């Protein structure tokens, strides 16, 4: 009966590949008894910057993929996650969840992906407008993705929280660089494996593991990032992010929620948060 388990090496997810951190650094995730669960990559500023480069490169093509196509890809993520449900439940349990809570969280994460998959070709209709201007012009306003988004995911509900902030950003045509829960990073990297086998083009979602305090300032100050999403309540972090975001007038989106299971945590308004409104005019007189 004594078979030695094969432990997974957890790496980063950048540009559709799984590199180790360029820094060679790591941090440990331990059981409550102190025994090692995994050595995680301690991502560096350079890793983050590399991820922004590939995210920027991927953004145009992803934004131009049809709404139907993006919706189907999000649905595909849900399908693959459903097939690996047991793996994620096990991992959440290893990270300290009860079996019941773990199962609930994985199922909610899958359902959330399906929810946003369905919005893909509907939210533009919900938020767009034809504007009845007084002059002889046809005038309409539509949404466009803001571009590249940095996301600091919730520390708790490490899978559901991650999915709840990534899905509305990417369904809207943005590409993202994501920092996983620092204390519970396992499911984030396993989720990257799901993304990697779900027709999500490389570079659309990039996931880092590492130290929040170290990386937040880079995520907030990078001049080629258009928006930053921060989940948490640390007042110092909120202030630091807003200050650094002003360097390039970055959009800041803050979520202070502690429970992502609630139905109030999904709506098209979450998609709208990383969108720009573009208004177009054209004369109608000949």
């Amino acid at each position, binding site marked *: 009966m004594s078979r030695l388990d094969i432990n997974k090496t957890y790496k980063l997810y950048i540009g559709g590949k799984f590199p180790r951190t360029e820094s060679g650094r790591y941090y440990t995730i331990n059981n409550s008894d102190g025994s090692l669960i995994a050595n995680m990559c301690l991502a560096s500023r350079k890793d983050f910057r590399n991820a922004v480069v590939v995210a920027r490169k991927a953004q145009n093509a992803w934004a131009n993929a049809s709404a139907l196509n993006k919706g189907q890809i999000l649905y595909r993520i849900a399908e693959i996650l459903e097939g690996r449900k047991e793996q994620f439940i096990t991992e959440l349990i290893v990270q300290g969840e009860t079996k019941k809570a773990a199962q609930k969280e994985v199922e909610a994460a899958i359902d959330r992906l399906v929810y946003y998959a369905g919005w893909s070709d509907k939210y533009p209709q919900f938020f767009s407008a034809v504007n009845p201007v*007084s002059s002889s012009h046809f005038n309409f306003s539509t949404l466009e993705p803001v571009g590249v988004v940095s996301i600091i995911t919730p520390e708790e509900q490490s899978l559901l929280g991650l999915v709840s902030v990534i899905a509305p950003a990417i369904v809207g045509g943005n590409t993202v660089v994501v920092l996983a829960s620092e204390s519970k990073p396992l499911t984030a990297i396993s989720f990257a494996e799901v993304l990697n086998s779900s027709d999500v083009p490389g570079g659309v979602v990039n996931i880092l593991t590492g130290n929040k305090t170290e990386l937040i300032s880079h995520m907030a100050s990078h001049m080629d990032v258009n928006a930053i999403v921060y989940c948490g309540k640390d007042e110092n972090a909120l202030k630091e992010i807003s200050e650094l975001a002003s360097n390039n*007038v970055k959009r800041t989106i803050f979520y202070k929620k502690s429970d992502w299971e609630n139905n109030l945590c999904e709506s098209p308004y979450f998609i709208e948060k990383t969108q720009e409104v573009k*208004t*177009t005019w054209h004369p109608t007189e000949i």
Partner: protein
Amino acid sequence: MAKNNNNNIFKASWTYDEAPESIDHIQIKEQYDLYIDGKFTKPIKGKYFDTINPSNGEKIANIAEASSEDVDKAVKAARKAFKGWAALSGKERGKYIFRIARLIQERAREFAVIESLDGGKPIRESRDIDIPLAANHFFYYAGWADKLEYAFPNRDPKPLGVVGQIIPWNFPLLMAAWKLAPALATGNTVVLKPAETTSLTALKLAEIIHESGIPKGVVNIVTGAGETGASIVNHSDVNKIAFTGSTGVGKYIQKATAGTNKKLTLELGGKGANIIFEDASIDQAVEGIVNAIFFNQGHVCCAGSRLFIQESVADLVIEKLKRRMETLIVGNPLDKNTDIGAINSKKQLKTIENYIKIGINEGGEIYQPECKFPTQGNWCAPTLFLNVSQSHRIVQEEIFGPVLAVQTFRTIDEVIEKANNTPYGLSAGVWTEKGSKIFHLTQKLNAGVIWGNTFNKFDATSPFGGYKESGFGREGGLHGLKPYVKFE
């Protein structure tokens, strides 16, 4: 400065008689106080500054300078008024705003004349654009006040509280309307600061707001310069800041409000690309170029200040543009023939002249038609720079004056790349008679407002605002309500 006189023949072919707008019917007091808590109030420190007519350098009136104590008074008045105003039914709130719209329309001519006197813009523009659009803006948002639940389905929109609003000098009354109308319709109370060189129409608006019978403290108007603005931004009991102005100040405000719970919208600078394809209707495009950069002396955040002409028609377009520039009349803002009025302030004139020097020093080829300026006042000839490239400062930086940087391009991909290669993203224009090309470009250009075969058009129903460093949030239309509500 280098002049090109080849086109003088066009200038000489006809002349215009003067057609000045009468100023008999306007009322301007010698001194204007702050409008706080429903009363015109002297500033606590008793300081006043001059507002100057930029077309002759003469003083028009004394304007009160609000100190941080005055701002505090205004915020307290707005806070006190908030509960009652927010609790008022949307229908009743809307009626006050409708009244304001009507009162502006009734006194439209007076407002237009004062706007041109105080700010320097041609009377044709203040009469036909600024003032009617300001009235329309109040009329449009008045109608939203009792319909907010339809603007945000499945949400329960609530006002934010006390809103601090800081506006620029290029469209003084219109920017006040853009700020006040949606804030009031959604149930907020306001402390508004006009720009120090153009306080008059905001103070005349205060009179109208007073006449409308709106509850005291709902709208407070404080005048002053940057320090007054900073007092609003840094006041601890303000729930939201809405700012229109330069990107530099916008960044400062974003930083200053960090770590507070203040909401923020910013409408900042721009460096709009105006793209002319070889298959454009060239004569229309030339008119569009003129309107894009010389409208309001180029004091326009969404001005088309970077011109891109497809190489095959570049010589033709530039020739026609120069000819058209020869016919532009620079002079008395109150003359109905005037195309380009006075530069808003001495300080801004210096900024523009400095950029013209930079352009020449960087090797740009300047073209200015010969202009006869009045002896007094701040004037700048319409200016072209040829032979410039993406790296030139006059191509990258916002000048906020009648200065156009001209570049050429060969392919669509090339011009999209060049047009988007700027930290700004407020506006862009495209000129072509080919429909698919229009839509291709309007989709690919990173800017909040795109004009196809037109430029510099505005409407109360049309959302306006920028991408990237041109700011965030929209003003106008349904989308313009969102910056003033929260969802619980």
